[in-house]
């Protein structure tokens, strides 16, 4: 490649960044916002699901089992459609982004519930007994002794789930949320350059998920040192 060609390529690229950059930035912010919100929803659902499965009250156990069974056995895309297109039929109309956050959060929550359940099962009985023997009530025991240990144990699994959460935001392109994938599609419709725009979107997803992987490795080192 000649120097002139290289210069030419560079000028075009900087032009493109000026033209499409802001759009990519705001689409990326949507991805980040939806990811964070849906992860928070998934932790709440996951905790309720995991504790529900251990409840001494049979109907609660049944409900928690049904939740996990239903979510794990159906495609996430269909779950998104149920919340966004299906719910209005029974009178619950949500904005695309709210519907998307709820659908992705509740969906991921079932996987988080299974992870937490496995983590709870891995806590030695003696940890619980020593807490109870000191007079702690079950709530304090859970919050102070059991869950912190479970959290450290399942952090790698939670990070994997967070990486899935980032990637699953692309499903919301089907319900008009202008996140990265839909933004790329919209630009392709006017530029007819699918390769460029899908690769650009892919690189941004890759950046976000790589940051999460690094974070996971950091936490693993940190907690390995602590215990």
């Amino acid at each position, binding site marked *: 490649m000649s120097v002139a060609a290289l210069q030419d390529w560079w000028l075009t690229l900087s032009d493109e960044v000026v033209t499409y950059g802001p759009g990519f930035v705001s689409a990326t912010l949507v991805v980040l916002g939806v990811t964070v919100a849906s992860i928070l929803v998934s932790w709440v659902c996951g905790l309720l699901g995991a504790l529900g499965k251990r409840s001494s009250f049979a109907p609660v156990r049944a409900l928690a089992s049904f939740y996990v069974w239903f979510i794990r056995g159906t495609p996430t895309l269909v779950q998104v459609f149920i919340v966004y297109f299906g719910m209005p039929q029974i009178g619950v109309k949500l904005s695309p982004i709210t519907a998307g956050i709820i659908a992705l959060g509740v969906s991921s929550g079932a996987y988080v519930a299974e992870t937490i359940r496995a983590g709870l099962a891995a806590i*030695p009985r*003696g940890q619980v007994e*020593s807490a*109870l*023997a000191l007079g702690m009530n079950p709530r304090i025991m859970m919050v*102070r*002794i059991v869950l912190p*240990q479970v959290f450290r144990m399942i952090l790698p699994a939670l990070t994997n789930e967070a990486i899935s959460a980032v990637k699953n935001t692309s499903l919301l392109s089907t319900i008009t949320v202008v996140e990265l994938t839909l933004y790329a599609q919209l630009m392709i419709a006017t530029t007819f350059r699918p390769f460029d725009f899908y690769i650009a979107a892919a690189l941004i997803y890759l950046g976000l998920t790589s940051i999460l992987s690094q974070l996971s490795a950091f936490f693993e080192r940190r907690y390995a040192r602590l215990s």
Partner: protein
Amino acid sequence: MAQIATAAAPLLKIRKLHKSYGANEVLKGISLDIHEGEVVSIIGASGSGKSTFLRCLNLMETPTSGFMDFERFAFDYEQGARRQPTPQQLCALRARIGMVFQSYNLWPHMTVLENVIEAPIQVRRMPRRQAVAEAEALLQRIGLYEKRHAYPSKLSGGQQQRVAIVRALAMAPKVMLFDEVTSALDPELVGEVLALIGSLAAEGMTMLLVTHEMAFARDVGTRTLFFDGGVIAEDGPPDDIIGAPRSERLRQFLRRVLHQPAALGETA
């Protein structure tokens, strides 16, 4: 020494305590008075119900039937009786009765100091500053003050078990229960844990300890119970029970335990 308190009202009163797991009756009617300052060692074969008995005392296990009286608590597990503990009473009772287990069960995500102050802060609602001061004094006493910011995994078994004892002591319990607390330790670490328990006994702490350390039971204990098949088969001063066993069952049991540890003891 054993007679000092016997005239006073007992600290802990157990009557006709039964515990079954399904069809398996493990405790078959235990009646017992424990007075303040008594150091009661419990011996007996594996499966005779020693652990189950200790666990019933702080209600880690729910008795099938029986009556129990301790401080302001009086519980009756008779069929249809209404004096069963509420969840709040369960916690309050356990806060007054310390229990230490064979596997130290320190919480691995907390430092030594955090392990010790956790229950005083959460259960006794003690201000953090005071809890830390008391915990540090206790850790000084067992020579582990320097280790207060270490995590349990960095401690030897004997150190962990002593922290576990101090963690229970930080609740200022009225009675301490020890269930084979030296059984999981390497022989060379047993001594430091027994020394700590011995010093508590010397201070007048009321305690019940399940142990296979017969020499310790004789030196430190004021009373020995021999459990056999879910009942107290013999009850008396350690020198009588261990030194001059009456029943053939107890003689057999002592022959077994006295010979095994002797072989182990030679290495220590």
